[in-house]
């Protein structure tokens, strides 16, 4: 039984509404993949598909105490609308988080948003007319794809390697676009522990990207949700800190360092851009939640927020290591994957005869899920890759999940061998891969030409 009100509907309904839908809904991506992804939510499925932080380690009594304090001290404000740009108290917390990553920001250059996702939406709303070019990484954040599509942007994706977006290719592409008389409105990048690629943009590339933006007067949208979740190595300066407040729009969020449920992110941008985004936000939702902004302010006032981030870093480091180890053990030799220094994701690429969308259907039979690589491209590429999340499951589940995926991949590799008459691949041998071999394979992971094998070791000294 249901209390859902029965609606009148006939087979003509679709045709009737179809004439009312805006053009942009026709390019919104919706798909088989979405139907498949819906199955990943079944309780028995080990989902390595989501991008969820682990909120279970946040102490319930802390949460209760903070909410109590908000109620005691600011009940009416918490229940009221707030300013579109956000409360000053929230802006002070944001400034603190940005300072932690070496940035100084004027509170007048901040816009509190409803999650980081809203920044992507507002930047598109502010800058993109139908047909305008957005330059993004290949692969790019799957969650940005529907946003780009809904603004009818023409997205050009630039290849990455282990040093992040290839700026040489970016420059060639910008040249080509200029010859074609098309000026990209902005370059979208996740420099730290890229989603889904798991790679980090090197310092020389960051420097060059900022230079390119200045030379060509192009905006860069720097999406940095995971910067503080670094498990090894030294942090690199953000593009925002190198830019001098001219061409970089910075996207930050509390989702990965505190909670995605509070839906609070922010943009820091040159004032004229921020003013337009502010107008866009007024139109979208007037303001972000007063209640959760005050919650964040209380949280920052009540103690050191870094301690919780540090505890997350400890948890996620263990999970990343568990996943890397499980991949080494259970994935066939033909597979390659990235070695993220932080963040939430590993990007794995299988031989090109394996279609990871089909593989997901098979994996779901084994009650395990991942994101098929195609979700991260707008041009149908990525068919043999997958995104694996290690923040949302515990180490035991990660090992078991990777084992199950490895099993079905192994079956398909063997079957392909049988079909083509190639010898079935030997099982992988743990700990025998040379560092150079790994680097060589890593170039393949992102579907790039192979690079010199000593590149990785060289980088450590030159970049940092």
């Amino acid at each position, binding site marked *: 039984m249901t209390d*859902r009100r029965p609606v009148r509907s*006939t*087979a003509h309904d*679709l045709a009737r509404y179809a004439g009312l839908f805006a053009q942009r809904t026709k390019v919104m991506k919706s798909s088989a993949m979405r*139907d498949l992804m*819906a199955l990943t939510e*079944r309780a028995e499925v080990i989902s390595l598909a989501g991008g969820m932080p682990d909120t279970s380690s946040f102490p319930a009594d802390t949460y209760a105490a903070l909410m109590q304090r908000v109620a005691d001290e600011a009940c009416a404000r918490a229940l009221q609308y707030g300013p579109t740009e956000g409360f000053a108290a929230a802006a002070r917390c944001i400034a603190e988080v940005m300072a932690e990553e070496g940035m100084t920001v004027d509170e007048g250059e901040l816009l509190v948003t409803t999650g980081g996702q809203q920044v992507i939406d507002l930047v598109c709303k502010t800058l993109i007319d139908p047909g305008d070019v957005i330059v993004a990484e290949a692969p790019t954040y799957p969650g940005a794809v529907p946003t780009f599509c809904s603004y009818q942007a023409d997205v050009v994706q630039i290849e990455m390697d282990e040093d992040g977006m290839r700026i040489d290719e970016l420059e060639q592409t910008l040249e080509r676009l200029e010859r074609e008389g098309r000026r990209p409105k902005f370059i979208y990048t996740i420099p730290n522990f890229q989603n889904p690629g798991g790679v980090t943009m090197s310092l020389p590339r960051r420097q060059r990207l900022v230079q390119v933006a200045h030379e060509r007067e192009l905006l860069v949208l720097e999406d940095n949700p995971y910067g503080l979740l670094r498990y090894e190595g030294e942090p690199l300066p953000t593009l925002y800190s190198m830019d001098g407040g001219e061409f970089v729009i910075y996207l930050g969020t509390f989702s990965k360092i505190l909670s995605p449920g509070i839906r609070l992110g922010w943009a820091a941008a040159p004032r004229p851009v921020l003013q337009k985004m502010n107008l866009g936000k007024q139109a979208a939702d007037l303001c972000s939640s007063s209640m959760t902004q005050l919650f964040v302010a209380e949280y920052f006032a009540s103690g050191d927020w870094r301690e919780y981030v540090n505890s997350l870093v400890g948890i996620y480091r263990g999970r990343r290591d568990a996943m890397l180890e499980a991949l080494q053990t259970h994935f066939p030799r033909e597979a390659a994957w990235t070695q993220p220094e932080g963040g939430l994701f590993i990007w794995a690429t299988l031989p090109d005869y394996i279609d990871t969308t*089909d593989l997901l259907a*098979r994996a779901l039979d084994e009650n395990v899920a991942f994101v098929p690589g195609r979700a991260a491209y707008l041009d149908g590429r990525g068919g043999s890759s997958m995104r694996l999340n290690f923040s949302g499951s515990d180490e035991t589940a990660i090992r078991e999940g990777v084992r199950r995926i490895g099993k079905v991949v192994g079956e398909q590799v063997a079957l392909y061998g049988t*079909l083509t008459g190639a010898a079935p691949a030997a099982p992988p041998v743990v700990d025998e891969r040379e560092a150079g071999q790994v680097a060589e394979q890593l170039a393949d992971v992102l579907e790039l030409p192979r690079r010199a094998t000593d590149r990785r070791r060289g980088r450590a000294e030159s970049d940092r």
Partner: protein
Amino acid sequence: MSTVAILQGGRSLERQVSLKSGARVEDALQRLGHTAVAIDVDSDLVTRLTDAKPDAVFVALHGRDGEDGTIQELLEVLGLPYTGSRVAACIRCWDKVLTKHLLRDHGIPTPDFHAFSETAFRELGAAQALPAIEDQLDFPLVVKPAAQGSALGIKFARATADVPAAIVSAFSYDRKVLLERYVPGRDLAVSIVEQEDGAPLALPIVEAVPEGRDFYDFEARYEIGRTRFVCPAELPDGVAERTQELAVEAYRALGCAGFARVDLMLREDGELFVLEANSVPGLTETSLLPQAADAAGIGFDQLVERILAIALSREPVRR
């Protein structure tokens, strides 16, 4: 008025579509004055059915379990009347290889094909027969899982080099794959609903016209704007009748009951081929059966009422 349990959702790859079908059926049943009990099929199914004590069960469960005879078997055991085809017909429709053999045995044209299990490739060296198959069936070749309700896993192989990967993909969905000769032409669907006297009635034909693509894929099948559906299909004189007759022949050959949908191809030279039959066709806003019924002047509520009446009128099989 009756109490009707609607089986929907479940674990199959068509879960989302099934939830939409089920919700629409539920609304229709309520408008018709029945008591509707929606059940998202899970491990507690038998308990929920026992508790609900329905007069009949409306199977709106697509894909595995709902279309392969599993649910029907269970409902037979529980002695509950249910909509649509019975166990054996479901099994025949679900396994496309079995469907095609039966069609062929009944002299109903279906594209040439060969089918192999994974074991045949792994243990019997069937891969060595691939060149001969490619010779017989020509390129492009359609490679699909033997059992899969939607278009997931269906690939075109345009050359020898594409075949192994297409087979690997198809095996993601089933233990048996079908290699089929590609029939270029028009993509037609005939929905069939039984009349009060039990005679199958072929509804107006729906043609799927892909827009700017050479194959309408899983996405297009359920979404707006990717494939245009024309109903009734504009066909030359006599072709529509021939198509409907052939579809009813296939429906009978497979032993379907209540309602079903038969998919066919109309080749450029006017030859018709039956591809497959669906024992639990979609009932969403974009599904073909409701569109066809509507074109025949049968509203969705009326369609649901008729399908239910057939279920209530037949005796459960006691064994």
